[in-house]
């Protein structure tokens, strides 16, 4: 096997190896540097956006309400999540789509047309 391991620098030169590697690395770095800069600036950009939007009372203008992120269950500890899940099992609307279907938990947030259709038979008109 050692015989085929003859390294030829000439091939590298012919194949534009070094400029190719440098170009490639430069572009990869520039892409990820830009991303790094963007995500570093993002929190401040969002703050400024909120300040711009705050005087205007139009609630739709802000991309999302400034939710209390600290209460986000996805970031709580597993133990808290387990407890939350337990409560969810007992409290959320539980409904069956068909005869042989597995039980699903449905949160109250609607998500477009498909989620709505199967439940139409059970729909509560006071909704």
């Amino acid at each position: 096997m050692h015989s085929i391991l003859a390294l030829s620098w000439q091939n590298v030169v012919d194949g534009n190896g070094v400029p190719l590697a440098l170009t490639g690395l430069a572009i990869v770095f520039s892409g990820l540097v830009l991303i790094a800069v963007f995500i570093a600036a993002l929190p401040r950009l969002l703050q400024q956006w909120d300040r711009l939007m705050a005087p205007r009372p139009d609630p739709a203008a802000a991309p999302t309400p400034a939710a209390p992120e600290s209460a986000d269950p996805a970031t709580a500890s597993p133990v808290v999540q387990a407890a939350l899940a337990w409560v969810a099992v007992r409290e959320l609307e539980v409904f069956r789509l068909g005869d042989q279907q597995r039980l699903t938990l449905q949160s109250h947030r609607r998500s477009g047309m498909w989620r709505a259709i199967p439940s139409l038979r059970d729909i509560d008109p006071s909704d």
Partner: protein
Amino acid sequence: MDLLIQFAPTTGLAGLTWGNAIMIVVGLVFITLAIVKDYEPLLLVPIGFGIVVGNIPYSDGMPLGVYDEGSVLYYLYFGVSQGVFPPLIFLGIGAMTDFSTMLSNPKLVLLGAAAQMGIFLTIIGALALDFTPLEAGAIGIIGGADGPTAIFLAAKLAPHLLGAIAVAAYSYMALVPVIQPPIMKLLTTEAERKIHMKAPRQVSRRERILFPICAFLICAMIAPGSIALLGMLFLGNLLKESGVTERLAESARHALIDIVTILLGLSVGASTQASTFLTPQSLLIFGLGAVSFMIATASGVLFAKFMNLFLKDKINPLVGAAGVSAVPDSARVVQMIGRQTDPSNFLLMQAMAPNVAGVIGSAIAAGVLWSVLVL
């Protein structure tokens, strides 16, 4: 260094046109509307992202776009351009649709027929604006307010307009809560909007099983061109209602429809490259689409008032607006407007009947247009 210079023109920035930039903004608007306003997010997010993807400039030699044979998007778009994805979506929709409200309200089915007036008047308009008959047919179907139907027919009749037609159809479907209310209020009196309707009766399991089979036979015998769409819709519904194929219905209404929706949305969005999309034709198509939705809404409402001339149990004419399909958004709009006038008036169940009938109606219309215009 030479290579870096050679690489520069292949970057996206180098080739970015104003058209691309505009379309990218349009895509971002779609995504924003979907997330912030919750307008048809399941379709607007993939389509919006697809519009962004489709307007990234790239060098000619690289097969990246929807129209470049061999590219990834080309293969995904194949399911759109050959009309395969829309029937698969109908299979999933059939497997989640409950026709009970329609089965218990047969006369409301007619409202789903009346609202298809939007399709046919728009065709006349499109012809007047110098579109060819094939193009006019494809544009008219926007008024059917059914994304998969519109994509299917456009792929058959006028593939070069598919992107504009699909984007117009989904845009207006998302905008149903904006477009319909003024027309509905304009064409109805307060007294009419206050009409209460009887609660739908219980529908037996046998009716629900027999319906998809017999309705399919009726539609297929009248307009065979609709069997690709309606065959799938009713097969999906039969799988749901038969009681012995629940696991198939489950996969059709989850994995299958979700996967196809992502791929369809992404590739339809990506087909709106600025160079082919930003044309006066596209603007006309958007204009005709808007008119189409308005005519469809008005036709449904007015036909309900017309039916009331002969009926003892009056129909609340608002319900007619649900005949445009755009399931279930237009039914929700009916409920909302109804309760604005009389908070105790719940019309959602009744509105679902013309709503699903409108899906069948526009699929029949697509079948008719296909056979009349192509043969």
